[in-house]
């Protein structure tokens, strides 16, 4: 009963907060009264047209595909390297310096270099995103591997768990929160980088479109695309990440 009212209150607050934001926007647009700040309704119309013409879904789809490919490569490689470094102090001491350097190279530099060295190709674009994301995954998973509970690993060894069994039953449940953290921060990072990659060297995708709107000073389209973008991120969070969290953490007190 109590929790029900609380939930109701929460959704009321969410609704109110979003409406307030919309209200401020409407008010500001009225005050400025210029093409550079369109009304919410105008943006909604542009959004609807772009969706119906298939233009927005196409470019959004292209960007999502790039995101999926580069994210998967970065996560798989990052987990493998992160676990290796977390388990082996010598290898870690050697590669730690590389990691620090790669962590501090600005994203833009990697993108430009990839295009210069490998041409304005799809593979160069993916590679640029992967190189930007990889060090973050490695560092997070390395922390997770270092934090593995030695007591439980000893228990597994004593009860003759083989490698696969140890990985599935003992290691993976402990790494899971770190993988989730790497996933969340990774998605946020890749979203931002991938647009720059597209802006600089691709002829489709969200980044390319935003660049086009900038040249045309088409703010309504720009905002319409932005909202599509934000909505997709929220959908991924709600439909994919949260349920995964809940499933994995139900044993916690």
């Amino acid at each position, binding site marked *: 009963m109590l929790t029900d009212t609380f939930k109701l209150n929460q959704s009321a607050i969410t609704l109110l907060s979003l409406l307030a934001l919309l209200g401020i926007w409407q008010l500001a647009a009225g005050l400025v009264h210029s093409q550079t700040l369109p009304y919410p309704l105008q943006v909604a119309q542009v959004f609807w047209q772009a969706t119906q013409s298939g233009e927005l879904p196409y470019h959004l789809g292209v960007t999502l595909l790039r995101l999926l490919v580069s994210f998967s490569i970065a996560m798989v490689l990052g987990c493998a390297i992160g676990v290796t470094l977390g388990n082996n102090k010598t290898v870690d001491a050697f590669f730690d310096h590389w990691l620090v350097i790669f962590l501090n190279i600005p994203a833009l530099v990697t993108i430009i270099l990839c295009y210069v060295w490998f041409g304005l190709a799809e593979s160069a674009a993916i590679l640029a995103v992967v190189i930007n994301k990889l060090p973050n995954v490695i560092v997070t998973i390395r922390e997770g591997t270092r934090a593995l509970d030695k007591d439980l690993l000893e228990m597994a060894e004593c009860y*003759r768990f083989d490698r696969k069994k140890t990985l599935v*039953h003992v290691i993976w*449940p402990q790494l899971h929160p770190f993988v989730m953290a790497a996933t969340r921060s990774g998605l946020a990072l890749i979203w931002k980088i991938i647009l720059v990659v597209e802006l600089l060297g691709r002829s489709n995708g969200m980044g390319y479109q935003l660049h086009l709107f900038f040249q045309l000073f088409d703010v309504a389209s720009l905002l319409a695309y932005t909202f599509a973008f934000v909505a997709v991120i929220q959908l991924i969070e709600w439909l994919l990440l949260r349920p995964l969290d809940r499933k*994995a953490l139900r044993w916690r007190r």
Partner: protein
Amino acid sequence: MNDITISIQDKTYRSKHAEDRQHQVIADLQLGVGRNEFVCLLGPSGCGKTTLLNMIAGLDSHYQGKIQIGSLATTARIGYVFQNPRLLPWYTVRQNIEVVFEQTPPAALIDSLLADMQLSDVQQVYPERLSLGMQRRVAIIRAFAINPDILLMDEPFVSLDAPSARQVRNLLYSLWQQRPHTVLFVSHDLREAIALADRLIFLSPPPMRIISDIPVHIPRELRNDEAQIEAFREHLLNQHPAINGLL
């Protein structure tokens, strides 16, 4: 015939930071444990009892010497009840027991062990929601369920209140009588050790060696008799005054 033959010349912990800081835990330890014998190891804390159990379990192989288990050292099943329960927190009580089996877990056996330890009601509960005493009982079931050739127990009753400790001790004892196997039991508590063991091994502070090796001749059916235990203890302490300083 010995089930476990231990012959360790040297076990030294080396500090990684300073070469000169070495800590010899065991020097020249010889111990044989017979088949289905219940042996209690007693000694001051920090004397290396846990280290010795880890070496027997095969978790620590950095030592000079030899530990032979049975005739086929590689196939001996070892049940180990650690000092802390070491349950997998993401699995329920029952899953924690089932996970240690290579083949299909024996449902009937697990049911009866859970019932014996009075854990049937909580078998679907996650360990972190249970008291430490209950978690310890789960760890004991896990070690028993695989029907081990050798059971290692590292102070499994420590930090339990006296009634729970007594209850779990009696349960352990009846389980052991139903299915005898070799037990090495580390304890601080002389009364507990006398109540359970065939043999008491008293160990010195490091470097660890055996100070005395005393058989307990109280008949099994009298082990629940407090007076018997107390009398044995008095006698023991009078005969071996050195023991008093150890515990």
